[in-house]
């Protein structure tokens, strides 16, 4: 089963993301900060990580750098999902090993498009009208 680790310090965002991703047949694991997320990855590598940037204890960027150095840590697709919408942050995330980047606010269409982009879910054609 595909698993997605949802990392965000907002329980509301985690809940919205869970609802969207469960419909895409992901099993969801939640983490409130980077440290919890890292522990979860050490237990079992997820298929995907939906990752906030600014969080207490350990932020998303630092988590990703740790993750990418773990054995098998290069495998999960990391999709940032953050209000840090500046080009500087996006570039930094991509250089640090992120696969995609969602600028908040987001919706189901954006999550779907981005997960398709990195091959996490299959691509479907939209009806024209």
């Amino acid at each position, binding site marked *: 089963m595909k698993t997605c680790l949802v990392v965000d310090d907002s329980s509301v965002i985690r809940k919205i993301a869970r609802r969207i991703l469960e419909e895409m047949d992901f099993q969801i694991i939640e983490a409130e900060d980077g440290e919890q997320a890292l522990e979860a990855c050490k237990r079992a590598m997820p298929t995907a990580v939906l990752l906030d940037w600014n969080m207490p204890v350990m932020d998303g960027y630092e988590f990703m750098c740790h993750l990418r150095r773990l054995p098998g840590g290069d495998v999960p697709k990391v999709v940032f999902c953050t209000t840090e919408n500046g*080009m500087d942050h*996006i570039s930094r995330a991509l250089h640090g090993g992120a696969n*995609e980047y*969602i600028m908040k606010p987001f919706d189901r*269409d*954006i999550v779907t*498009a981005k997960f398709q982009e990195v091959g996490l879910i299959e*691509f479907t054609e939209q009806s*024209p009208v």
Partner: protein
Amino acid sequence: MTPPDYEYLRKLLKDHSGLDLSADKQYLIESRLLPLSRKCGVSGIADLVQKMKGGSSTIIAQVVEAMTTNETFFFRDKVPFEHFRDTIMPEMLKARANRKSIRIWCAAGSTGQEPYSLAMSLKEMGAVLAGWRVEIIATDLSTEVLEKSKSGVYSQFEVQRGLPIQLLVKYFKQNGEFWQISPELRAMVQHRQLNLLHDFSQLGVFDVIFCRNVLIYFDQDTKINIFGRLARGMEGDGFLVLGAAETVVGLTDVFKPFPDKRGLYRPSGARAASPQAGGLTPRIAAMAGR
């Protein structure tokens, strides 16, 4: 919406744009025209229809525009752009090796996502196109969407639909909440206002035509007529790309499907029976105003 209002709008849209709505598209009219009626300061579609019947040509133009503008996004449906990169361009690079020029037409260019997706695809091909001249002509019925296409400015929402983040970083500049495609890419696309119902031979002859998700709106005779004229506006070894829900099969033999590539067609060499723009009915010929 009352049935007479629906019928009125259906007929008007057919006459003005060729848009051929089936009997069950009330939701589409409501979703497009309710925002417009608010913009026009009337309370709903009934009032909007009243104004149109009163002869307000600006309102009629806005209604036609609202109804014929497609939702679109970057690399929409993906597959056509894979065909472009993996099939069309390699063939064209061989076939045009002497001429070193390729002409591409986006026949329903809308707000620019399609022509700019093609422009990005070309840039991503890199050095193989050095010394080549590649023209992209984007046309649309609506001047409003063409203006947006020219500006190359997109909202944060729009750049997150279909556009890989790497391409956003590479080809766009951020301006507050908006993103503008680079001047270099904007310069690759020329814009023209065009109604496909009218003669388009003045655009010249193309190697590649993207004509996606626009013919679905036309009735069968109009489709056949447009296919005939597209074939005449295309090199014998060119490529036609249609939308996912569109085909030439059963309509015309001027194009034939390209084997194993859905949505991709090539001229068959057959001559169209009725190649004249506006040759179908006097009604179409009378639409030259737009």
